[in-house]
């Protein structure tokens, strides 16, 4: 009897997990499906799930009307460089807070996080004016700068929790073994921290890639990343659902692939410390 219950429970929980997963994935699936519909099918009520006229013309139109490559390059540069700079600043910061904490370390960490508690729109006008006066509007440098600062608290927090997990004993053993701080960093700490560094970089890259508030407000064309490319399909003349979906699919494709290949790292990074 016990075995019967177990099997039923496994079946039910598996089905529930799949259903839940499907529900979460559904909007993305719907977006991909819509991108292959005609504008008319995309609007149809009731919507058809699979039995519609499949077409790739939306992709052709999107590529014709706007330069996907240009926006994609901007996205890569902005997300990549902002991540890199954030890491350069965050690694020493997190390192010193994790291994040489002072009485105020906790306060500093909280203070950094507090900057994420205010909605960005609250500082939109001052930032916009500063950017205008410094000629940073619609520039890649401007976007890199703001995204880097925006994500820095999260990067520092993630790295801090990672470094915290590295046993102090091992660093002390290295010190007893005669390693200077530099060598301790190169030979002991960095190799041990690589999974943490990688998943932090990856998460930050995805956050920067998907960031829409600042990119939409501070860029128009020259520096505009893929978020702006998507938004350009919701225009005052009406929504073009199918083209919008095609643009969105194109925009998320790179990170989707990146995420797929690094999902193990990502899951480990997001659950680090929680499960050990």
């Amino acid at each position: 009897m016990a075995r019967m219950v177990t099997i039923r429970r496994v079946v039910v929980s598996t089905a529930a997990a799949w259903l839940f997963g499907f529900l979460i994935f559904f909007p993305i699936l719907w977006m991909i499906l819509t991108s292959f519909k005609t504008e008319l099918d995309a609007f149809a009520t009731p919507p058809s799930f699979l039995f519609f006229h499949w077409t790739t013309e939306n992709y052709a139109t999107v590529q014709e009307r706007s330069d996907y490559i240009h926006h994609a390059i901007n996205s890569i540069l902005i997300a990549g460089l902002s991540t890199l700079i954030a890491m350069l600043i965050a690694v020493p910061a997190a390192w010193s807070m994790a291994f040489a904490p002072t009485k105020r370390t906790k306060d500093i960490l909280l203070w950094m996080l507090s900057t994420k508690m205010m909605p960005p729109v609250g500082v939109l006008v001052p930032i916009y004016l500063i950017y205008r006066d410094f000629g940073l509007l619609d520039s890649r440098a401007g976007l890199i700068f703001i995204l880097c600062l925006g994500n820095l608290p999260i990067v520092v927090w993630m790295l801090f929790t990672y470094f915290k997990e590295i046993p102090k004993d091992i660093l002390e053993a290295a010190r007893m073994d005669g390693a200077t701080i530099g060598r301790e960093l190169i030979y002991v700490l960095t190799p041990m921290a690589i999974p943490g560094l990688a998943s932090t970089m990856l998460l930050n890259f995805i956050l920067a890639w998907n960031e829409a508030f600042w990119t939409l407000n501070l860029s128009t064309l020259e520096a505009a990343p893929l978020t702006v490319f998507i938004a350009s399909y919701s225009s005052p003349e009406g929504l073009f659902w199918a083209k919008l979906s095609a643009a969105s699919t194109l925009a998320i494709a790179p990170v989707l692939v990146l995420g797929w290949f690094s999902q193990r790292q990502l899951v480990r990074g997001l659950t680090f410390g929680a499960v050990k």
Partner: protein
Amino acid sequence: MGQISLQGVRKSFGPVNIIRGADLDIEDGSFVVFVGPSGCGKTTLLRLIAGLEDVSGGKILIDGKNVVDVPPAKRGLSMVFQSYALYPHMSVRGNIAFGLKMAGLPRAEIDRKVEAAAATLNLTPYLERKPRELSGGQRQRVAIGRAIVREPKAFLFDEPLSNLDAALRVQMRLEVTRLQKQLATTAVYVTHDQVEAMTMADKIVVLNAGNIEQYGSPLELYERPANVFVAGFIGSPKMNFISGDVARQYNAATIGVRPEHLRIDRDGQGWPGTVTVAEHLGSDTFLYVDAGKIGTLTVRYVGELDLAAGDPVSLSPDPARVHRFTEDGTSIRA
């Protein structure tokens, strides 16, 4: 050479005094064990010698040179940590070689020394493995290998066996002692286990609440404890303490008698009592005797004794082995 001496060493974390002024001379080549209850400051004292903590006052001399301002790596000591603290991303070879690599030794010499250390510790078949592929005892041996390969002036051990199971602990205890005698290198060993202290040490330092209570050979501590604390801490089972009228007969505030120095009779002279628990180990018999106003006394009898709970007995101490203490707990020497 590895002669270490502490002169008035103090350590405080903020207002909390961990070490209240330690004076100690550790002779070259000796095996010294720091023992005491948890929180007594024994690990802190070891870390002060290692240089992993800065002293708040006093001097630490290694071979006559004050090293309080010398970084840990330059003190010529090596340490074995309780958690082993192996480098998880390096092989056993890499772990043992790390210190030599940091010292900039030529490759061939490093290889030769690592292999010699591995052979001493029976680690040769595991040299290319990662620490996670080793058992607890093997990891411990790698940690020891990392310490011996550098040929330090002294080894510092911080409760190195406490993560091992009981059987392995006894075996490693023996190996560590044998290795230390073979290398004739000074060793300072921290433990909370008095049996480890008694079996391994040439000399024991008993610490309590940041003070050195007594420093001497294991038998000195057993036979002539300086005070009630040392008397109670050294020896297993614990010494029986009796105060009141009985102690007054001996001109002391408290007397102490070890379980093995209490004679037990079925009927006769001495303190009458009733057996509450009898533990028969074959080699020994431990009896817990309720002796009325005197309290519960532990008795150790070598060999088998046919007594059970409820049996009336009488106890008498070996008069030459009664320890006498004053009101404040210090020993009274005859």
